[in-house]
């Protein structure tokens, strides 16, 4: 069994169930992340920072930022609508628009706001391919009434025998592209020098000194070994650039996804920079339908 589906190779499934899981997982993640940001604090930052920013056109009145927490709650409400299937197409579009607006302003004080952009893309792509998702509010209500064990409609809510999941197909391509640019930009500006083990040890030491004032335990261990450093730099480029290639060549993506997640674990342990978002984003491509099928011992239909 595969751990992650290459939807570019197989955008059709026996069930659209993964759309429902992906929609709910994305919604829960987006709301959790969004409400963890104290956007109300942005009103205390000096006005001139916003005035001189490239993003100043996003603020209707540069010195008035008190409205942002209201927008924050509105986005959370719209995303809940998407999850439960009420007015979901336009709720997804509007949530993406408001989220892009809000984090554009947040970006003025920290560029880490860019980690919200995949959520914006996911919401837009969901709205574009919303018509392929048969889990309407009424379907969900019906499953709720009859109980999911007796209802076939959980794995096969419609009469079709094949379902297209283009939302997840293009989301996978977008994620593959972002990794490709992180890898290619290293090659473009540093070429082979990037592969030097000492480039990595200097980066780790520098980040530790600047962020912690001392070396993290994993960092102290890692910079001692040239073998580990060299393997890590090579693996980073192979996984970052390779993911999009295996996607469009329609190969299995498991090794590349696991490699990238391993890379994120190593970056967190050695530099304190944590892309937790990626663990959730890759969860969108887990074959949830096959898992459910297996754990219910085939009570639910499959191919």
């Amino acid at each position, binding site marked *: 069994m595969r751990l992650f589906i290459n939807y570019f190779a197989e955008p059709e499934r026996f069930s659209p169930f993964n759309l429902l899981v992906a929609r709910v997982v994305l919604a829960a993640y987006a709301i959790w*992340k969004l409400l*963890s*940001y*104290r*956007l109300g*604090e*942005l009103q*205390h*930052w*000096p006005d*001139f920072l916003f005035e001189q920013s*490239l*993003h*100043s056109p*996003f603020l209707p009145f540069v010195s008035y930022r008190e409205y942002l927490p209201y927008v924050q709650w509105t986005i959370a409400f719209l995303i809940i609508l998407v999850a439960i299937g009420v007015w979901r197409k336009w709720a997804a579009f509007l949530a*993406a*628009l408001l989220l*892009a607006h809000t984090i*554009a302003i*947040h970006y003025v*004080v*920290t*560029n*880490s706001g*860019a*980690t919200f*952009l995949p959520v914006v893309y996911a919401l837009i792509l969901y709205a*574009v391919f919303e018509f392929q998702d048969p889990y309407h509010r009424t379907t969900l209500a019906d499953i709720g009434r009859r109980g999911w064990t007796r209802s076939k409609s959980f794995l096969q809510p419609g009469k079709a025998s094949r379902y297209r999941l*283009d939302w997840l197909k293009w989301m996978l391509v*977008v994620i593959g*592209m*972002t990794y490709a*640019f*992180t890898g*290619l*930009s290293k090659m473009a*500006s*540093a070429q082979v*020098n*990037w592969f030097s083990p*000492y*480039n*990595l*040890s*200097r*980066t780790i*030491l*520098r980040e530790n*000194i*600047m*962020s*912690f*004032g001392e070396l993290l335990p994993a960092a102290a261990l890692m*910079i001692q070994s040239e073998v580990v450093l060299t393997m890590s730099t090579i693996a980073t480029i192979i996984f970052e650039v390779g993911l999009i290639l295996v996607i469009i060549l329609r190969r299995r993506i498991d090794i590349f996804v696991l490699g990238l997640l391993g890379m994120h674990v190593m970056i*967190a342990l050695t530099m*304190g*920079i*944590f*892309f*937790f978002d990626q663990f959730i984003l890759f969860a969108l491509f887990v074959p949830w339908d096959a898992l459910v099928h297996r754990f219910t011992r085939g009570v639910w239909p499959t191919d």
Partner: protein
Amino acid sequence: MSAGALHAASVIVFSGFFLASFYVIAVNQAWARTLFIWGFVGVLTVAGVTGYAFWPLFDWHLYPHTAESSFVFYEIRLSDKQGHEIPYDAWAASPTLTTPVRRYAARLIAYNDTRAEELARFFLVQANMYREHIQGGGQSKYAWYVFPPHQYGYSWDAEELSGIQTFSELHVFKREVQMSEDGKHILVDRENLVRTFSL
């Protein structure tokens, strides 16, 4: 590009992106979806390749440069009337992180006096509010229910802040660090107090 041109480009890209999405979602036709998808892949490629990425596009150039063996950075430290000095906890100036606060430390040197003082006052006021919050037993940024921050770094806890009174001064230090070529040791770590702001 001039500031005006950059602003215009950012408005055009943002509006264009969402108007195009709106149109595609509204007409709900296969040809429009195909066009939109390839257009989207196209603009992401342009942003990623050229580095000209206007919101909501992004270039995703992360750590593209090699690390030199020597580097310079600025950091903010705070002190109270008794002279207790501690580094800045980025969470005090929420919602930001350790690296951006370091960039602001550099800007406190580069800005003219009016702006630098306004920014320094902001950092001091926020730090005092957050100090009271932590000293009063409040949750730090690593509370379990908060989405894991993108960057971990030096942070305050009640123990770190014990005995510390109201912060009255903000110090900007310039750090010049020289590493060994193999990045395993620090050879030189010089720090100089370059600017002081008082509340």
